């Protein structure tokens, strides 16, 4: 396979429970701080109040928060987009003169999770359609494109928990193919009662703050947030004098074709996704400085992923940042891509918060303290319901 042309990352916006922007989140990661708590925006009937990673209202700009006719997911996407454009030095009028694509991943943002409406309907009442209209208005990629007045391809990826990773990989291919001049790529998702019930029903939710790759891990904690990366062709970015924060070197994806919720026991699809991404990037495993793993904290995911990472990258450190953010579903791949770039810039990765004791079933473990890393290449990978696996390879800017 011929390596793919790199794509420049010229801006990043990120909002999650760890911080209202990327710098704040990275500071929280550096400090090892996190504060999951039981959900405050909804009630549940579970005897255990499972912790989540909620975004405080103050993290979202008020003018965006006030867009109550949109899902919170979509408002998170708008907040992250605004930050990413500021970081990249773009404003909306300038973008309107170009072909600009929007590719965002989500789960909740496209789901007809309309519990209140449905309860009324079931009871024989004739509920109004305000909730349905809100759903129809909230498609994340469409809203971002529409709000900015953009003209170009739009795509909302609904590949469950790999959506954000897939969206960035797909948008990079749009840039390579010349389908647009600039692409806004990432993911967004919000906490909601229905998803909370769903993950608890699968018995993969930890009653405690999650412990990725730890021997005593019991499951994930849900989170919420969004991240958006501004992607451009390197020559285009250079011509306008933009700062390149990183480069998307490669992307790969593959399906386990095995089970709706459990990963393939030998990580079949994940291995293939890694192989494709590395080939596209033109790099070998020893070139990879670190890996931001999916690392949900569920027994199955971490065992399979840990084994694959050890087999393919025996000497490469890996960490899961979900201990700081919770599992943000369709946003996770995007937020973790943002963290991966920031860690490459910083030359270090955070401690694997929640990890204390190695699991004998997992060869390898995340660091227990901040770790300096050397190298110009890093990876972020995602696994998902449906057996989807997706891998992004990032490189530092060319010197």
């Amino acid at each position, binding site marked *: 396979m011929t390596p793919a042309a790199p794509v420049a990352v010229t801006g990043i916006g990120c909002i999650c429970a760890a911080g209202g922007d990327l710098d704040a989140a990275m500071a929280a990661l550096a400090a090892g701080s996190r504060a999951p708590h039981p959900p405050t925006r909804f009630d549940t009937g579970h005897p255990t109040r499972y912790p989540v990673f909620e975004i405080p209202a103050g993290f979202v700009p008020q003018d965006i928060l006030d867009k109550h006719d949109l899902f919170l997911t979509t408002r998170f996407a708008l907040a992250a987009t605004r930050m990413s454009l500021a970081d990249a030095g773009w404003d909306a009028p300038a973008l309107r003169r170009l072909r600009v694509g929007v590719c965002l991943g989500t789960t909740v943002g496209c789901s007809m999770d309309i519990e209140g409406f449905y309860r009324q309907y079931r009871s024989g009442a004739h509920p109004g359609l305000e909730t349905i209209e809100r759903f129809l208005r909230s498609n994340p990629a469409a809203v971002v494109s529409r709000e900015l007045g953009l003209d170009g391809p739009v795509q909302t*990826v609904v590949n469950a928990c790999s959506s954000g990773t897939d969206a960035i990989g797909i948008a990079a291919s749009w840039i390579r193919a010349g389908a647009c001049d600039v692409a806004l790529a990432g993911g967004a998702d919000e906490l909601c009662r229905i998803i909370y019930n769903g993950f608890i029903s699968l018995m993969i939710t930890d009653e405690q703050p999650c412990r990725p790759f730890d021997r005593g891990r019991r499951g994930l904690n849900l989170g919420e947030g969004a991240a958006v990366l501004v992607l451009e062709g390197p020559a285009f970015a250079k011509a306008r004098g933009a700062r390149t924060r990183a480069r998307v070197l490669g992307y790969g994806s593959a399906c386990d074709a095995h089970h709706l919720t459990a990963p393939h026991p030998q990580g079949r699809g994940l291995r293939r996704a890694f192989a494709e991404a590395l080939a596209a990037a033109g790099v070998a495993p020893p070139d990879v400085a670190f890996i931001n793993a999916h690392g949900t904290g569920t027994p199955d995911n971490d065992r399979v992923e840990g084994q694959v990472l050890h087999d393919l990258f025996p000497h490469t450190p890996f960490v899961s940042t979900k201990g700081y953010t919770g599992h943000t579903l369709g946003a996770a791949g995007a937020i973790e891509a943002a963290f991966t770039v920031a860690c490459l810039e910083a030359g270090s990765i955070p401690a694997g918060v929640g990890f204390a004791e190695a699991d004998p079933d997992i060869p390898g473990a995340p660091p227990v303290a901040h770790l300096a890393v050397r190298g110009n290449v890093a990876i972020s990978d995602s696994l998902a319901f449906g057996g*989807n696996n997706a891998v992004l390879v990032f490189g530092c800017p060319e010197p």
Partner: protein
Amino acid sequence: MRTAIRGIGVVGGFGTGVEALRGAVAGGRAVTSSSPETAGGSRETRRADTAALEAFVDRRALRRMDHISRLAILGACLALRDAGIDRPDERTGVALATGYGPTGTTFGFLDSFIDGGDPCSSPTLFSSSVHNAPAANLASVLGVTGPNLTVSQFEVSASSALFTALLWLDAGRVDRVLVGGVDEYGEVLGYCWERFFGAADASGCRPLDTRRQTALPGEGCAFLLLERTTGVPGGVGVIESVQMGRVGATAPQIPSDRLLILGADGHRRCAGGYLQLVPPGSVVTSFGHLWGSFPTATAFDAAAGAVLLQSGKTFAPPPGLEGSGPWRVPAAGEPLPAAGIGLLRVSSGGEYALTLMSLA
């Protein structure tokens, strides 16, 4: 490099398989059914039957499969059979569009905890309620291990999936892609339909009527099996390109030398978008009255386009299209323009997608 159409797989209100599609398109016949009585009443619908799936897949593998996944698997099986492929190889990908996802299962999941309390939430229904469950089930049943993508972009969902599928093929990520769209109809959607649009217009679906709401709800799945080819494409034709953008921004380059299949389906609000975009004098038709209105119906337009390319001629236009705008509606049996076909879909949110297809 060309992207050849190797197979067509369809299941919709007109029936199952490419012959049923061909018959419906040629005859302009719609098969109707009536939605169950809901809080909003009942109306004529275009429903799809998945009974034919058991000819392809062991019943045990389908035991817990919901309707939308059955639709997706059947559509994929039919496309593979049409292409003469028994099992997809590892260089095959899936790009599936859905506007609303597994709504029936989503509401089933809500039922589980509304009836029994939150601790009684059904894990089986939850895991099948995610939007990519149909594509995942398809991959699992048919053993498709390549890239697997589900997109949701309402009316331009199918075009968006096709847009990325073409790039996969062009970049050499895969050799073949099953690309299509799936959506299901159900009681809650029927209620919403009634509340949004009121009683159905008795005149039936008139695709480009801007004064009356005549759309009829539909459901189904349509797949094309696309393949990279460096040689002369086979008999079904090629997908040349997909262009996406916003109505009112850069104007789409709508060709005047092709037959335009408009995604108009009787939604009054969307009809105006077509009137705005399609140049006067264009040759247009539409088929939405055959499969009904649902977000991913463009996948059916693409399948119909492939059937037209195969036949080399146009078929009967839908009722009410003649005189609906400053364009020409071809007569049944008129030769297809040599340049080929354009599929145009305009969304209620202001996006458009233009797909170009031809024989070579």
